[in-house]
């Protein structure tokens, strides 16, 4: 791909999603865009880039952007963030919201659904303490294609073996041919919605718990700051934010502070008390 063409696509993808593509990712770009060109009956990347230059075709621009997202996810990814939720956050949430008996959780870049479904399984396991509660799990992502997979709740053998304890597989999945299908009751606990983190997030409402894991790593500093700032406004005063293992707020946003002793967990900078302690 010509440097000019590469730059054009990079700019497009960054403007639309925040994702940064460096020059050493040229091979990635080509291998991801070839299928897009093929699906549209184009001869090759030159024709595709031509069409992007021509602008106008919103569907194409969206498809190109989506093609550049990395959607890898596992159930109970990194274990710890989910243990912390079950052992610390949830009990505190239950006592802090005893009056209202309602809470909302947001998975801000939920990809194929493993993260929200992991949380749904935890809530299901604790159902006895939550009877009569209104619980909401919202999963959003920029990619409509990956959201369709999340909604389908169908996973390969490979996917269900990464992070999902076998007891939970048995309990919450049925196998049909080679596909592991998630339990409809669990599926109904999660709402999915297409949402771009670069857009105004206000419409999503307020949340007690936000998982924004393994997406900020793909953004540059100013974009990270902006997204964190927006998230801080959606968080309840005692709410908590989970970031990915390679992500932090330090040096990026002063809206949050790390929760001591809980790696990867953050609360609002001004909070005197949070659901994490």
């Amino acid at each position: 791909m010509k440097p000019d063409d590469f730059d054009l696509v990079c700019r497009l993808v960054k403007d639309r999603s925040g994702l940064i593509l460096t020059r050493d990712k040229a091979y990635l770009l080509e291998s991801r865009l070839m299928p897009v060109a093929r699906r549209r009956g184009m001869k090759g990347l030159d024709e595709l880039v031509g069409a992007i230059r021509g602008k106008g075709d919103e569907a194409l621009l969206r498809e190109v952007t989506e093609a550049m997202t990395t959607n890898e996810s596992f159930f109970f990814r990194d274990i710890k963030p989910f243990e912390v939720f079950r052992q610390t956050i949830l009990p505190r949430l239950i006592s802090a919201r005893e009056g209202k008996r309602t809470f909302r959780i947001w998975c801000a870049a939920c990809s194929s659904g493993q993260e929200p479904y992991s949380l749904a399984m935890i809530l299901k396991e604790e159902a006895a303490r939550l009877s009569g509660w209104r619980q909401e799990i919202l999963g959003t992502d920029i990619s409509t294609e990956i959201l369709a997979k999340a909604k389908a709740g169908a996973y390969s053998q490979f996917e269900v073996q990464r992070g999902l304890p076998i007891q939970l597989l048995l309990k919450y999945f049925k196998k049909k041919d080679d596909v592991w299908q998630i339990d409809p009751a669990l599926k109904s606990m999660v709402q999915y919605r297409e949402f771009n983190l670069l857009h105004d997030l206000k419409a999503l409402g307020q949340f007690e718990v936000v998982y924004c894991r393994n997406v900020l790593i793909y953004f540059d500093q100013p974009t990270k700051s902006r997204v964190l700032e927006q998230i801080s406004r959606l968080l309840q005063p005692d709410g908590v934010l989970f970031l990915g293992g390679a992500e932090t707020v330090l040096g990026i946003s002063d809206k949050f502070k790390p929760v001591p002793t809980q790696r990867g967990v953050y609360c609002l900078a001004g909070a005197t008390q949070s659901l994490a302690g």
Partner: protein
Amino acid sequence: MKSCLIVDDSKVVRMVARKILHELNFETLEAADGSAALDICKKQIPDAVLLDWNMPVMDGIEFLRALRKLPGGSASIVVFCTTENDIDHIQTAIEAGANEYIMKPFDSEIIQAKFQQVGLL
């Protein structure tokens, strides 16, 4: 160093598993069927067992039931690693006392993830 007994009738599978487990800092023992594995366990109960299902002489599930009856045999963490990938088999394994279950094919990532889940890592 924790010990892991690899039970599989395939030499190749044992070799692959051995390599992965050494990288994860396990000391490994090997057996080609359940009966040979049981003999090893009678001398010393390993911290972990990576267990195939279908093997000559004594299969994995029979071995597991026998292991659980040995003195100290309930302490060993047993992870099945088999091509049997239907719910009935998994259910049977759990009921017999398996701690985790890997459906083949496996790689180091899956072994590591499963061993982490059961607290071996």
